[in-house]
């Protein structure tokens, strides 16, 4: 584990206000989800999950086919599809288009994919103003931070912190009433929407049979982003494909419920190409940037490619007892929580943050709530094994490896195992002294255990001894 990871975790754990904020917010989302999938309101919830998994599996296994179909359909409706192999190609496309159209102001709606490629920062390097318009994202942008959570980016910010930010960055009088803070943001962003040259959105789903970009939201900022400016660019990972518009009957029901406990979110937009001849408003130009950026690398791994089924609902974060302790910023990339713990090593390499797949008690709550049934614990286990193999190649983690080798040898030799047990017991305080608070010797794992809790005294006689004496 890197020192930075360790430090971020410690910082989060020792900040009581932050702990409370994370716990309350995730707890509320857990509760809302629970209510929305109760059998009386959603009797077929488990069937929906099974079906969603089957559709995602089929699509990912035939992704080339659906990418081609999607491209043909977008073009048939007068839009354009741009394939980008990485972040640079994606942002270069946006930059060159902005330059050609003499654009200055860009409005953005919430998108994890554009966060992944740091699009806003890249645009700002070229003197383009790029404004996040989702309230949470806007706050995060003002604070120059990364999103804390996939669906609730500013989950960690208190109203006081938001008040300071608004005053400092916008020069408005300090306002701590949340409704009024929201209205301040609305007024600022309304001007931006009406003046923007380009709107950039993400996509929750890309529908192959219709060339449709589907966007799900509650605020209306994504509708404004995709309707007010003359140019709409949607940026999405290649894994966002689904075969048919009709499949949305399954996915929309799962997404809203899993994310926020809503049967449907406030706005669901089906966007298929630029404004048509007789339509009154909408963009004149429509582009879909399809991003690889490492996804084909994940795709090549048969066992782990299901990581690409993710619909970014955030349920695994809310239900993860580890995320609820360490929060979003402890993670070394934009994706956090259980899904982040499996995506980050696969995108950035297992040695980027080797501790990441180990930061889990493997409780399985994530897999239980995943609407597309990604087997996250199994993938974590695979990644752990990959980390250890990489360490062995690089000569790292020698002591632990040696310890496990010895352990495995002892476990194959029952007599030695028994003697080792007796030896350990003889070194430790007697059973009658109760649970142990201080170790008689200083071994790393023992010290780590005792830093948090007491240790049981070794039993005077092991089970096998008691068994023999019966």
């Amino acid at each position, binding site marked *: *584990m890197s020192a930075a990871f360790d430090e971020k*975790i410690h910082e989060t*754990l020792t900040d009581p206000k932050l702990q409370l904020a994370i716990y309350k917010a995730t707890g509320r989302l857990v509760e809302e989800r629970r209510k929305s999938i109760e059998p009386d309101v959603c009797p077929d919830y488990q069937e929906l999950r099974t079906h969603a998994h089957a559709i995602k599996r089929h699509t990912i296994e035939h992704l080339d086919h659906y990418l081609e179909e999607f491209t043909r359909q977008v073009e048939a409706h007068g839009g354009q599809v741009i394939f980008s192999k990485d972040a640079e190609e994606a942002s270069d496309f946006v930059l060159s288009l902005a330059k050609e159209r003499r654009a200055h102001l860009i409005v953005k709606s919430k998108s994890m994919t554009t966060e992944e490629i740091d699009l806003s920062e890249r645009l700002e390097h070229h003197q383009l103003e790029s404004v996040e318009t989702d309230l949470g994202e806007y706050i995060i942008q003002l604070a120059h931070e990364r999103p804390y959570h996939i669906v609730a980016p500013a989950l960690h910010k208190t109203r006081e912190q938001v008040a300071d930010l608004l005053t400092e960055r916008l020069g408005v009088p300090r306002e701590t009433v949340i409704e009024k803070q929201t209205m301040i943001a609305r007024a600022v962003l309304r001007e931006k929407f009406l003046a923007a040259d380009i709107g950039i959105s993400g996509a929750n789903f890309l529908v192959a049979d219709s060339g449709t970009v589907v966007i799900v939201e509650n605020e209306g900022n994504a509708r404004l982003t995709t309707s007010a400016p003359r140019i709409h660019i949607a940026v999405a990972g290649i894994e966002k494909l689904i075969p048919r518009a009709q499949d949305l009957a399954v996915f929309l029901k799962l997404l809203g419920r899993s994310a926020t406990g809503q049967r449907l979110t406030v706005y669901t937009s089906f966007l298929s190409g630029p404004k048509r001849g007789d339509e009154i408003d909408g963009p004149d130009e429509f582009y879909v940037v399809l991003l690889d950026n490492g996804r084909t690398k994940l795709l090549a791994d048969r066992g782990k490619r299901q990581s690409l089924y993710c619909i970014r609902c955030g349920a695994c974060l809310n239900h993860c*007892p*580890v995320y609820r*302790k*360490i929060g979003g910023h402890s993670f070394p990339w934009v994706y956090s929580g259980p899904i982040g713990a499996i995506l980050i090593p696969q995108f950035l390499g297992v040695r980027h943050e080797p*501790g990441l*797949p*180990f*930061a*889990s*008690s*493997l*409780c*399985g*709550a994530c*897999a*239980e709530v995943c609407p597309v049934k990604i087997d996250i614990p199994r993938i974590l*286990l695979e990644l*752990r*094994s*990959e*980390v*250890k193999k990489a360490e062995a190649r690089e000569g790292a983690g020698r002591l*632990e*490896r040696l310890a*496990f080798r010895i*352990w*495995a*040898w*002892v*476990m*194959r030799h*029952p007599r030695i*195992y028994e003697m080792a*047990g007796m030896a*350990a*017991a003889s070194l430790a305080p007697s059973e009658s002294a*109760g*649970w142990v*608070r201080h170790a008689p010797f200083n071994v*790393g794992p023992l010290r*780590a*255990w005792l*830093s*948090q*809790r*007491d*240790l*049981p005294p*070794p*039993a005077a*006689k*092991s*089970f*096998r*001894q*008691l*068994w023999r004496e019966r």
Partner: protein
Amino acid sequence: MAARVSLFVTCVVDQLFPKVGMAVVQVLERLGFRVDFPEQQTCCGQPAFNTGYREEARQVARHFLDVFAGADYIVVPSGSCTSMIAHHFEDIFGKEPENLRRARAFESKVYEFSRFLIEVAKAEDVGARLHEVVTYHDSCHALRELHIKDGPRRLLAHVRGLELREMDAAEECCGFGGTFSVKFAEVSGGMARTKIDSIVRTGASTVVSLDSSCLMQLQGALSRAGLPIRTMHLAEVLASH
């Protein structure tokens, strides 16, 4: 003739909580089973498997396959170890067809203790008596990998004198997680304390679970916090009278 049951007591119970093993034997014998303890047994290999050392896990798992080769039923007082044998042996023997076949043959023979009582012994009332208010902690692997939820509660409901009070976060992890508990000690400790808060709110004097490792984590944290709440394995509860 009485059915023969092979006990895999697990390394944690063998070394740290032998009374749990004795309690399992007592309950099974009371129900008329003949208990066999293959003395060559050690561990299922899970600690290595969960830490990413698959080769080491395989070595230990092969030993397990040998030791329990002749078993009719294998009863395990742990959801986690049961799941390792029933589900994850498959993951590590992918390239060893013969061992994979042997591991798969175990899938239908290996039973977590409470499941064995309900499904094979068909016993919900084992004649236990314990005057305590208890709360039940769903250990994660029993709950989510073996889908054990009602069984232990039904067994507890038949214990005379016992009152079961559900805690608000019964299904939330205690934070043990094997080597996670020492690799991320501070997070693990925090999880245990959160869990303890919900245990305390029930007013129960005892926490019951199926896994001694979860109970070690919880008892360790309870003891550190100076709380007068004890932990008991389900087998110990069922052996009481």
